[in-house]
């Protein structure tokens, strides 16, 4: 084994290999985040359900009952929950990833490992909560007599896309956060704006057909729309929107990773 340390850095495939080499550390960081998340809370893992569930109740009251937001022919509560489920995961993962580098500053200044593992682990550790919260969706579908949809297995690649999207945005924000602590204050704001520009509370069908492509430029829009179609059925899957969103997600992920890689060298000095 031969290691050469210089000031010049070129991205090589061997670095991807070294990421793979450190996968075990990644899985330990994920386990740590999961184990620690609900330590010393009375309700423990129930929090994973409580948050999206009560958001669903509140949204159903205000948007479903009072504002009469349309819901593509499905009962509004199950409609909004099917959107909130991936959204809650996404916003939580993005927040955790953005704070992850600063939160692990003591590790970063003392031990070497590929830094990208840190935000990646933060994104992945939210998946357990996502799984737990999805049981509520199953329950609601039983309650509202919504049958199983043949497209349901699509949920798995769609979740994968959500993970990539959170990781891509997370790479950008966590690297920026190391240098500019302004990011910390913009994140809640960004997430709120992002929520309202995504079809979570409302169906994407309220946007005129000729602007659908613009909506899909928001990478989460296409994913959320497809997620709903896969779970609740009743609507054809909008492959075009999903394609556009997937493209944006890929772009976000690759650019985020490269930017993170470029900034990585100075993290220990700046953080």
């Amino acid at each position, binding site marked *: *084994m*031969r*290691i*050469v*340390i*210089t*000031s010049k*850095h070129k991205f090589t495939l061997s670095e991807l290999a070294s990421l793979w080499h450190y996968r*075990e*550390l990644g899985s*330990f960081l994920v386990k*740590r985040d999961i*184990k*620690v998340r609900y*330590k*010393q809370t009375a309700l423990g893992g129930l929090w994973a359900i409580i948050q999206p569930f009560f958001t669903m109740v509140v949204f159903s009251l205000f948007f479903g009952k009072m504002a009469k937001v349309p819901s593509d022919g499905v009962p509004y509560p199950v409609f909004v929950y099917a959107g909130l489920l991936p959204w809650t995961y996404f916003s939580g993962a993005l927040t955790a990833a953005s704070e992850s580098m600063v939160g692990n500053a*003591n*590790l*970063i*200044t*003392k*031990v*070497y*490992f590929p830094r990208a593992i840190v935000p990646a682990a933060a994104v992945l550790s939210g998946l357990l909560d996502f799984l737990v919260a999805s049981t509520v969706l199953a329950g609601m579908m039983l309650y509202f007599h919504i049958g199983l949809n043949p497209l349901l297995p699509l949920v798995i690649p769609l979740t994968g896309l959500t993970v990539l999207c959170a990781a891509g945005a997370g790479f950008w924000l966590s690297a920026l956060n190391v*240098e*500019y*602590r*302004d990011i910390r204050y913009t994140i809640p704001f960004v997430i709120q704006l992002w929520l309202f520009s995504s079809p979570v509370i409302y169906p994407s069908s309220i946007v005129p057909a000729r602007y659908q492509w613009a909506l899909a430029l928001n990478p989460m829009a296409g994913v959320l729309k497809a997620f709903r179609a896969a779970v609740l059925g009743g609507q054809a899957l909008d492959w075009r929107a999903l394609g556009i969103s997937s493209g944006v997600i890929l772009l976000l992920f690759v650019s985020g990773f490269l930017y993170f890689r470029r900034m990585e*060298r*100075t993290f*220990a*000095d*700046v953080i």
Partner: protein
Amino acid sequence: MSDTIIKVDGLSKKYRLGATHGYKTFRESLVNAVKAPFSKSREREEVWALKDVSFEVKRGEVLGIIGRNGAGKSTLLKILSRITEPTSGRVELRGRVGSLLEVGTGFHPELTGKENVYLYGTILGMRSSEISRKYDEIVAFAELERFMETPVKRYSSGMYMRLAFSVAAHLEPEILLVDEVLAVGDAIFQRKCIKKMQEAASCGRTILFVSHNIPAITSFCGRAILFEGGSVSYAGGVEEAVDKYLGAANAAADRGRIGLKERQDRSGSGAVRLTDFYMLDGAGNRIGEIRSGSTVQLAFEYGSADGRPARNVELQIVVSRYSGDRVFQFGTRFAGRSFAEAPARGRIVCRLKRFPLPPERYRLDAYLVSEAVPADYLQNAAFIDVVDGDFYGSGYQVFEKETPFLVDGDVSLEGAP
């Protein structure tokens, strides 16, 4: 193809002063970007933590790295362990590197001892199968068998450090970087640690050992490098390196005789600074050396930077033998004093009764705190010479270096009770 395992070539590292103080904000960056074309030279204070450092280490060598604070030792280890990048130069390592830069980082307080062993082990680069294999050994070494299911936040700091060091000590890299970790735990545990490292060395592992503990360096290392101001000022035999290091420290202390004021090798906020040091006998007359057993007053003059009265001033001193072993510490805290209000310029006097050390030359470190913030820290603020003073009043002398302490006492003979 020689058996060179570490090759360092022209290594330099530059830090921008102030760059890490406070965070950058977008606004600053924008303002700078706008200003940049108009200001002729952007004046930034730069510091070379390392400058053109080159050396080689052979496989199986134990290399000591010594130097004063800020000489570049830790920066070197940080580059070797790939935590930070050099500004220029090149390092070639032929083997897996393990570093013990600060044990226990990576421990999570909420997790149990066992969980932390695995987490910290993986962070240090061990495979989990490797950790499982060594788990019992690690726990036994730390002597914490009964506490492995307890969250480490309930550990005492000693237990915490023992467990952390124990994990790190079972790392088996070809190259081991060690920075001051031997200051962990009690004396017995420290001896165990040294033994563990000697074992590693005898197994042909290469070790780079940074320490201020001169006895540990001389007993443990085969070769040493002395750092001064970011570059290597000597590389070779341990004895010579240590002599040169102590000589440099000596010169610094000699400068101290001119007045502590001019010394540059200090750290702390500088809000309050030591300006002079001298010794007085019990009656208040200046003395140049201490007689064992006499009363001595160590006087430290200080001044505040802004000329206003200083608040909550504390002074601590550490007296060490010339070779580096600490002998005692003393100061406001130990004497149960606190100075809430102190004049802008003044003098703090430590009065020591029946000075209990035998004739030798000692070093004195001084540490000044104001309002709970380290204000001034001077290593080797002064050297103290102790001469024989008939401590016991019997005329019997404890010779230089015979035993490190003199005790106050009497001996009597009594019949069977």
